[in-house]
């Protein structure tokens, strides 16, 4: 039965997360924007304790736990809501501060990959560290200087040293979100994408877990960015970096199929709508502030009035509300599908397309509508304008996601629609 009410556990969690966003994020939002590369430890330590008490969060909910929950829930007839809950949390934290949200320990893309593709042993080895006393971070190292959305162009290599039974990793990775915190600031790990067979194209692509402190793996550059400055984005060089044989995620043999690669792409079915949730959080913050400021200045929005009678500002705000709400609902639907194991790559990319579009439009319009106030750093609006753009870029640009959506609608393979 069609139902738009958030499940009770999500409502309760949302109240808590909102308190965190209001009290621990907003007050220091400007500071960590102006002091790039400083780390918001107070927030991180708080979140670490809070998240631990909740049993941890991750981009990909732990399957075993989910299965157990599923079994429990079958008795009570509660369908799974893991991704929907995560979407609400990410939305609210991004409403607080999109850069600081990316500093939440233990919930990044590296652990998502381990959750999605790791063996039970690997999950135990790599994921239990998040429940320790100190906050621990993880990251995904996929992009290379010559390979962004076209991940099949990745050149980093992994060669098996059969004598020592170790993989030797070589290559350069860029745009690793939270890579510094994963490798230098905690006992974390990164998941590195490399090829085990340079002639095999996508079929040879595998991911490897590289733990903090592994010789041959170093952070070489901290990027200076347009926005989300509280979050570190780093370059990593792998030079004869040796990791144990067991650190490979997925099968070590190269088959002619691209099944392994497609499996990796499946992670996007969850991560893309999560980025959309981040976009929606920033957009909601913006729209709320915009409406507040307009109201202070005597502008109220007359909902229900024909457009011919509205002022331009009213029409702009109403259109923003339509965009924001519809993008959020599509995001929720994509994740509801993921929770219910309904195949969702089309909806996942749709939500990413619309989320990125909507937040960029809303933040750009809001800055303009508030004139000199919007453009000033006295308010957070200009920061959100800068933060917003990342959601249209990472986890696949808006354009890559349009391609994915179009392929699914048209029933085309990559070779038919390039």
């Amino acid at each position: 039965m069609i139902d738009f009410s958030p499940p009770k556990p999500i409502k309760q969690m949302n109240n808590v997360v909102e308190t965190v966003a209001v009290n621990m994020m907003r007050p220091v939002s400007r500071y960590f924007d102006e002091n790039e590369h400083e780390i918001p430890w107070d927030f991180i330590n708080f979140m670490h304790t809070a998240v631990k008490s909740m049993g941890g969060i991750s981009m990909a909910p732990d399957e075993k736990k989910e299965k157990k929950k599923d079994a429990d829930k079958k008795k009570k007839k509660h369908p799974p809501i893991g991704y929907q809950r995560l979407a609400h949390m990410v939305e609210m934290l991004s409403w607080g501060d999109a850069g600081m949200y990316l500093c939440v320990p233990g919930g990044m893309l590296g652990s998502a990959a381990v959750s999605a593709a790791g063996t039970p042993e690997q999950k135990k080895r790599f994921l239990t560290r998040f429940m320790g006393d100190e906050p621990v971070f993880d990251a995904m190292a996929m992009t290379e200087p010559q390979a962004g959305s076209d991940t099949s162009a990745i050149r980093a290599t992994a060669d098996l040293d059969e004598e020592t039974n170790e993989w030797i990793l070589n290559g350069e990775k860029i745009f690793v979100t939270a890579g510094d915190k994963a490798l230098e600031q905690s006992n974390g790990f990164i998941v590195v994408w490399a090829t085990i067979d340079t002639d095999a194209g996508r079929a040879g692509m595998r991911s490897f877990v590289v733990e903090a402190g592994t010789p041959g793996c170093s952070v070489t550059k901290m990027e200076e960015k347009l926005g989300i400055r509280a979050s570190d984005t780093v370059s990593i060089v792998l030079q004869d970096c040796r990791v144990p044989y067991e650190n490979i995620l997925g099968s070590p043999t190269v088959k002619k199929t691209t099944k392994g690669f497609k499996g990796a792409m499946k992670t996007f079915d969850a991560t893309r709508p999560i980025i959309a949730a981040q976009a929606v959080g920033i957009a909601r913050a913006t729209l709320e502030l915009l409406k507040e400021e307009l109201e202070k200045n005597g502008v109220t929005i007359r909902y229900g009035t024909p457009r011919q009678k509205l002022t331009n500002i009213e029409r702009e705000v109403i259109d923003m509300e339509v965009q924001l709400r519809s993008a959020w609902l599509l995001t929720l639907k994509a994740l509801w599908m993921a929770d219910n194991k309904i195949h969702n790559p089309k909806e996942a990319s749709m939500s990413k397309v619309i989320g990125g579009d909507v937040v960029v439009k809303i933040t750009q319009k809001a800055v303009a509508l508030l004139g000199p106030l919007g453009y000033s750093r006295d308010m957070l609006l200009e920061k959100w304008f800068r933060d917003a753009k990342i959601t249209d870029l990472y986890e696949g640009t808006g354009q890559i996601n349009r391609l994915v959506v179009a392929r699914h609608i048209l029933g085309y393979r990559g070779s038919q629609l390039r």
Partner: protein
Amino acid sequence: MYSFSPTEEQQMLLDAIGRYAENDLRPAAREADEETHFPPNIIEKGWEMGVLQASVPDEYFGFGEHSAVTGVLAAEAMAYGDLSGTLAVMVPNLFVLPLLFCGTEEQKQEHIPPVIEAEWKPYTAALMEPKFDFDPNDLATVAEADGEDYVLRGEKAFVPFAAEAEKMIVYANLDGETQGFIVSADGEGVEVGQRQKLLGLNALPLFTVNLESVRVPQRDRLGGPEGHDFAPIIDSSRAALAAMAVGMSKAAFDYAVEYAKDREVFGVKVAQKQAIAFMIAEMGTEIEAIRMLVWEAAWMLDNGQREASKTAYLALTGAANMAMMVTDRAVQILGGHGYIREHPVELWMRNGRGFATFSGLAMV
């Protein structure tokens, strides 16, 4: 608990409506538009799907319970076939649902069963007015109390089937509030004007109606002497029209997708060009996003949510924009062929523009 899947019962209804839309409405749509007439047997067949009958409780001779969610799902599925045809089939909603929402017990007993029990008949409503900034909450048509009666004066437009209607609900401004009055179409002072010629909706007979001091007894004021709240009526109208915009846009979208996969250009299909594929991706995304907003509005209406009225307004606002974008692009994807009346996309584009204007033409 979020859920985006219709109930089994709703799904069965949707399957039936889907077949009707595809096998009856769509094949008749072009000729109906050209001949400015929808075949009555097809309207009757649509009526017999029982969408309205199923939203009326059995004490008024229906066989169900009202649900805006079921209503928007049905409207969306039917409008996939043809918009004029769907509006025609659902015209009695404009009379019955305001009574169901706002009528007194006596009014319900008196007026609902004759509509529900019979074959399709043009019971209708008059809300819109011929002015550029028409506002349903600020009508130019006025109602004045005169002893035990009310006297209505003003000019209405876009009144479906007014010429053959038996009864209609006329909306008028009574001391600043929009109030409904049950009026006999052949009553004194009710002058049905010329059939209107419009950009779209050619198959739907729409008329101007002049109200020359039409006297309405108090017992025919919707809701009795105390009157009624107008919100449930306009909210339902917005949700219905938004749902139809989604269904019709989906039709244009699917047609354009099929064409783009079939048409060769420069040795490939036109859909293989990113310029076209990106348009398609955006159309599909926008339809799905607005669709969720329409569903949410309907769900809010059913559950008495505080933001229901606002959300219904937002849903129609978004749906009107989306419908124009999608139908325009559908024509664009067909190129010059889209401009030719052999294809239905130009019809959808003309109808698509209407959602910015239509008000009170449908209810769920």
